[in-house]
């Protein structure tokens, strides 16, 4: 077995040093009735060639998004990742290191986490950020819990523009607490008014920008209403590339920003691992979940970084911790940090403009199809259209010709009748004119 360095001689010598006759002498505490006498019923070990063959065969049964004209978004976004990103995150000192609990020999990880926190704070317009959470959806659930700690109130209001997976994740997280969750109805038109749902006991309002249907909203009026009521505004941004061109949550009055950094970091990966971004106001830092890197000096006075404010966390506070989170998304945060470093101010802005320009082209092409109506007038890189027919069968049909036309809203809102003709389509810098034309022509072909 190529990964196991001990040979038969080693094992004999080690058992002798221990004073054990056989390996099973070391398993004496296992009740005999529970010991397996033979290997479990699974295939034996395999060489690198065989394993690669088996996995490649599985991979070949899938159609990668890059092999199609893909207009899929709705919470997961396909962006071009520069080659340097994947090269750097595969350096063993990053890939095979642990949580930086020994800061003297983890300064590489700690410094990039500090840089990551700064980037997240800058792009979101917030004061401080943590060192990442699992993903955006679980970050939204954490934000709801945090708002309840800060305000000592029970009510949580979720917008009808919040991605249903995020909404459901928030609901699961609150299920056995004394919180009261109010969920606004799905809002495909982007016209909901949440201010009337804010009450005396509302801890937070959770909104998404752009919404799951692609609508960009000015959140300032809602922020003012929240502030007047002592309610926190949680702004979720599943598509962080939008922050290169759209006014950030901090500038609109958000108290907590939750983002999904997958598009600029780890990539699609069929849904995971992703990258939860989390930022807030400095005065709430002690109520923030997740690890945080902080700057300090060593005994020689040299600048360095450590994990700090860890008394919030489970390994010290146990059942009184702000969250049970232990692992974060370290390597995904590194990918994001490198990508953002490569983009810089100019690149990040240009990337966002390019996405928006492609989406405008896509929206024009879709809107020009007879019977198709565009529901979005203010958007970033994603729009919702209403088809004259059910959307899901159209999407399935077009997929056969390697056109991923978008996400049928029925996939996210199963059983909701009014969603069945809606299609959520997304463009990005990877979208070509040819892709847009293939989408337009294919859709026209099906609807004819």
């Amino acid at each position, binding site marked *: 077995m190529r*990964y196991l360095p*001990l040979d038969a001689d080693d094992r004999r010598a*080690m058992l002798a*040093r*221990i004073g054990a006759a056989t390996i099973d002498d*070391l398993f004496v505490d*296992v009740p005999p009735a529970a010991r*397996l006498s033979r*290997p479990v019923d699974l295939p034996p070990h395999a060489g690198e060639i065989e394993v*690669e063959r088996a*996995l490649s065969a599985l991979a070949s049964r899938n159609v*990668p*998004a890059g092999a199609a004209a893909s207009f899929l978004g709705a919470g*997961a976004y396909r962006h071009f990742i520069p080659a340097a990103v994947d090269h750097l995150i595969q350096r063993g000192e990053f890939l*095979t*290191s*642990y949580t930086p609990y020994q800061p*003297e020999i*983890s*300064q590489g*990880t700690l410094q990039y986490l*500090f*840089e990551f926190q*700064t980037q997240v704070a*800058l792009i979101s317009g917030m*004061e401080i950020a943590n060192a990442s959470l699992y993903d955006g959806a679980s970050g939204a659930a954490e934000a709801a819990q945090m708002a309840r700690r800060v305000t000592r109130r029970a009510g949580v209001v979720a917008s009808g523009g919040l991605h249903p*997976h995020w909404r459901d994740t928030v609901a*699961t997280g609150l299920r*056995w607490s004394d919180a009261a969750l109010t969920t606004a109805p799905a809002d495909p038109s982007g016209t909901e008014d949440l201010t009337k749902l804010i009450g005396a006991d509302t801890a937070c309002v959770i909104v998404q920008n752009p919404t799951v249907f692609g609508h960009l909203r*000015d959140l300032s009026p809602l922020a003012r209403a929240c502030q007047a009521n002592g309610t926190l505004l949680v702004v979720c941004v599943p598509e962080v590339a939008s*922050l290169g*061109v*759209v006014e950030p949550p901090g500038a609109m009055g958000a108290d907590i920003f939750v983002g*999904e950094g997958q598009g600029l970091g*780890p990539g*699609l990966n069929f849904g*995971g691992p992703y990258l939860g971004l989390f930022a807030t106001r400095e005065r709430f830092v002690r109520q923030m979940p997740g690890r945080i890197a902080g700057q300090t000096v*060593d*005994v020689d*006075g040299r600048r360095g*970084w450590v994990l700090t404010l860890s008394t919030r966390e489970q390994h*010290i506070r*146990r*059942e009184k911790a702000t969250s*049970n989170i232990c692992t974060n998304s*370290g390597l995904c945060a*590194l990918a994001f940090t490198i990508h953002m*470093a490569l983009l*810089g*101010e*100019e690149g990040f802005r*240009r990337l966002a*403009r390019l996405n*928006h*320009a492609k989406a*405008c082209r896509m929206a024009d092409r879709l809107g020009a199809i007879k019977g198709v109506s565009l529901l979005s*007038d203010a958007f970033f890189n994603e729009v919702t259209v209403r088809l004259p027919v059910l959307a899901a069968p159209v*999407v399935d049909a077009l997929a056969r010709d390697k056109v991923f036309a978008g996400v049928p809203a029925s996939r996210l809102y*199963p*059983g909701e009748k009014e969603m069945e003709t809606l299609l959520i389509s997304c463009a990005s810098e990877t979208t070509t004119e040819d892709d847009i034309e293939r989408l337009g022509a294919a859709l026209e072909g099906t609807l004819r």
Partner: protein
Amino acid sequence: MSAETPPGAPRAPNAKSGRSAAGPRRPAGAPVAAAEADAGGFTGTVSGNRALAIEEPLLFEQGSRQRCGVDLPDPANFKPRLGGLERKGAIGLPGLSESEVVRHFTRLSQKNYAIDAGLFPLGSCTMKHNPRLNEKMARLPGFADLHPLQPLSTVQGALALMDALAHWLKQLTGMPAIALPPAAGAQGELCGMMVIRAAHDAAGQNARRRVLVPESAHGTNPATAALCGYHVDSIPANARGRVDVAALRAKLGPDVAALMLTNPNTCGLFEPEILDIAAVVHGAGAYFYCDGANFNAIVGKVRPADLGIDVMHFNLHKTFSTPHGGGGPGSGPVALVEALAPFAPLPWVVAGPGGFALREDAVGDAAHTIGRLKAFHGQMGMFVRAYAYMLSHGSDGLRQVAEDAVLSANYLLAALRDTLTPAYDGPCMHECLFDDGGLRAFDVSTLDFAKALIDEGFHPTTIYFPLVVHGAMLVEPTETESKGELDRFIAAVRGLKARLDAGGAERFRTAPHYSPRRRLDETRAARQPVLRWSPPAPREAAE
């Protein structure tokens, strides 16, 4: 006042009589005396660098607004449709070329210890070799470039892989259902405890509000139980480091929802009375949750179902070697007995006549689900790596993994028994536990000893965990270390102890001496938190 401090932990790591007090302040990155001054009075280097150890400023202290490491076309003239929400003002991101970015992160990487570089005996963390084949497989476009909401007809291979991974986990646990979505071990715990809560609720057992957790448990256990609305009641260990079954029995009652137990436990010991424990827990109508963090010790040798366990989470980044990546991402699937399967979180992979499908909503047989724990379907990138790892080892190799992991830990225990003080008698499982009994006479703490190991080129052991042992040092070598590397570690520990015996304690208290940074002032970091870079205050107008 009630303090939660690990027993034996230095109370004030940065205070106390210059033991590690912050020394003279120098500007960041200024030269430091690494060697004695020569005849001319020069010390250190001019730059502050030390050969391969190069000081690296923050990204924000380099670069300029105009530079860029990617070449993107500027979109031709078009009319923005942003609803008047265009970003105003600069973001403040620095611009760097690709060459600068590559160098920056390469230099940062060189300040990290890693399993690729050497032994990483961090107890309870299972830092084993990360095969590169797994990385290569996870990057196949047929896995890495799949959108989670593609039509199911275009992702049949991905769903087949998830199903196959679940099959392996079922065989290894003897349990009939696997919940794949949890993002990491702690979320796996949350999943498992929520499933238990939902099952009790569905059975009208709403009065069960207490969860029993051993004192030695990982902090995530009580934190998780609290999130499910449970009151945490801790149970003591006996003198052998195991659950005191009599104490457990006394704590059980009709208001107990579950026992959360790590097995092998956090002291690296198998619970010999586990079948009795399961019987009394079930007898009281409670469920038996097992924290599977230490599954590496028994994979392929013992099936959790045969121990009476109802729920167990895996840490794919421990047992199945998906890389820790500096603290994540992880992956924490959960194995469930039949009675708990209906409550599993969404989505489920289901096999049908037309291929695999995903059950994404709470209808039909999924009506009792606890719901979603995150967006989409789980940590697919980790599933691919873990599955490649399993296929590589096979049933025989996985069994060998457990045996070699246990053998290596016992070898360290035997070789260090007279050097450090073992916390408990008898053989251990995949990790061995020492206390600070042998250090206290020298006024050297576990922390000091750990920092001295850094200078010797090893990552320290886990320290001050579990909390039930004074000044704990928990050592987990894993199965992927050669005997030669284990012997080098043994020699280093023995050599350090010999130095203590020879009166060399002072050097421990100021260790490490050779790392990229020496002890860092954690008090300062927490008192005046600096959690992000901020632009320097605008300078006064030039005179």
